[in-house]
């Protein structure tokens, strides 16, 4: 009870501090480049009331959901494969780490060429960002499973598939989830970035368009929506993450 309340106090304080800082920056800089928190909130509500806004939101939501699903499944599959196979892991893990550290934007032209300008390019771009942490965390999680669990699995005569689904997966779950949590944020960045560079629909597109037109209202409102969404989901994921780790 008291720890639950403590867990809420931190984010609340942070939120208040951010809003105050935002308001003060607004006072300092003025209307040319910024809107106040209250103005942004009001314009966001206005934007959400416009029927023409919703298709963009839905487009981004769908692309993000698809990218996240691909990132999670692909990352998990690659992670299990490389984590269980020592040789494959030794060969491919450094490549994944290299891919993790380069700016993915450099790969975007290639993605555009292979997927075209439509929704699949930004899904691919989102997934490209997200699958690597899932894969890297899964590899490590699988390698760190206590060997005794595999012995127990042999004594109970589990098939290879049962060993993976009943032992490897749950034993590695907390770490895999941490990878997923990081993958979530990166997939979101990737999806919106993908929309900004080459797309005719979606929040990223609206954002890019607004930058071109210097429409500060839209820029601020969409940024606020993205930040609030990311913050809420990330905190929820972090809470689950902590709970999963507690049992181990």
């Amino acid at each position, binding site marked *: 009870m008291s720890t639950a309340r403590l867990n809420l106090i931190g984010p609340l304080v942070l939120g208040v501090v951010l809003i105050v800082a935002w308001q003060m920056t607004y006072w300092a800089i003025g209307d040319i480049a910024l809107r106040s928190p209250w103005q942004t909130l009001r314009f966001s509500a206005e934007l959400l009331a416009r029927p023409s806004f919703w298709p963009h939101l839905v487009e981004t939501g769908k692309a993000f959901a698809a990218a996240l699903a691909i990132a999670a499944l692909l990352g998990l599959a690659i992670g299990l494969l490389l984590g269980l196979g020592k040789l494959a892991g030794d060969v491919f893990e450094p490549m994944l780490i290299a891919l993790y550290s380069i700016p993915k934007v450099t790969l975007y032209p290639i993605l555009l060429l292979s997927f075209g300008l439509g929704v699949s390019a930004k899904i691919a771009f989102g997934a490209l960002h997200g699958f690597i942490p899932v894969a890297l965390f899964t590899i490590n999680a699988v390698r760190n499973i206590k060997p*005794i*669990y595999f*012995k127990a699995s*042999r*004594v*109970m*005569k589990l098939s290879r598939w049962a060993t993976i689904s*009943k032992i490897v997966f749950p034993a590695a779950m907390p770490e895999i989830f941490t990878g997923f949590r990081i993958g979530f944020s990166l997939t979101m960045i990737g999806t919106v970035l993908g929309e900004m560079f080459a797309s005719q629909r979606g929040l990223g597109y609206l954002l890019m368009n607004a930058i071109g037109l210097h429409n500060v209202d839209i820029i601020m409102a969409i940024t606020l929506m993205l930040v609030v969404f990311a913050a809420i989901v990330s905190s929820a994921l972090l809470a689950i993450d902590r709970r999963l780790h507690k*049992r181990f």
Partner: protein
Amino acid sequence: MTNASHNDVHKDDLHVSLRGATKVFRRADDGSEVHALGPVDLDLKRGEFFAVVGPSGCGKSTLLEVLAGLSTVTAGTVTFEGKPISGEVPDGVGVVFQEDACFPWMTVADNIAFGLRQAGAAEGEIRARVEGALALMGLNAFAASYPAQLSGGMRQRVCIARTLVLQPRLILLDEPFGALDQQTRLLMGEELLRLWRETGATIFLITHALDEAAMLADRIGVMSARPGRLLEIVETGWPETRDSTIVEKPEFGHVTARLWQWLRAESMKSVGRMDRP
């Protein structure tokens, strides 16, 4: 118990047999070899209670893994119920490991039920057997707890229960009571004896406690410092219906004294001291 073969008349037939069983580990990094075990010759009769004592690091766990079929011998043969064991755990063999092998992501009850579920037993049967095992191990109140909420000794009891519900014909236990206090250990020992009588299973128990070996076993194998060989097999001659009160008998003192005689020199070797002449 359900397993008919347990109560068969062949009390004296051969259940497990080792001939020249040897294990040499080769390290993957530098290719150096560790001669961990053997050669060991050993016959276990069906339904006998055999204990092993030996200095630490002498190869007891290695011997157990060889018997379990978890580890292949580099020389010699291992037979269980007449069939050679090679690289696979035979049906009817249960193992309680020295390390904590409870699955932390499952409740105590699910841990115990796990093997039965995997083997495809009926849900009603599973529930009945799990309840029995929980009661036997004094874990009733913790059925819905997760292992992280239990003490080390209780987790080890979960592991014992998990093995027992499968009703193995050969039970291999690697220092199962190591994490328990002396009183609980004696009581768990009595439970193990009762179980052994009821099921007729063959028991192979590794322990570092001489009194525990002397109280529980029909025969006690004393192992040498690494590479582990059987130096001597001490017969206790206890009646089948025995319990912890056996420690009061003078014969009990004789058995532990004999074990210590054999072990003293070996233990000194293993802690790096030479025995004085």
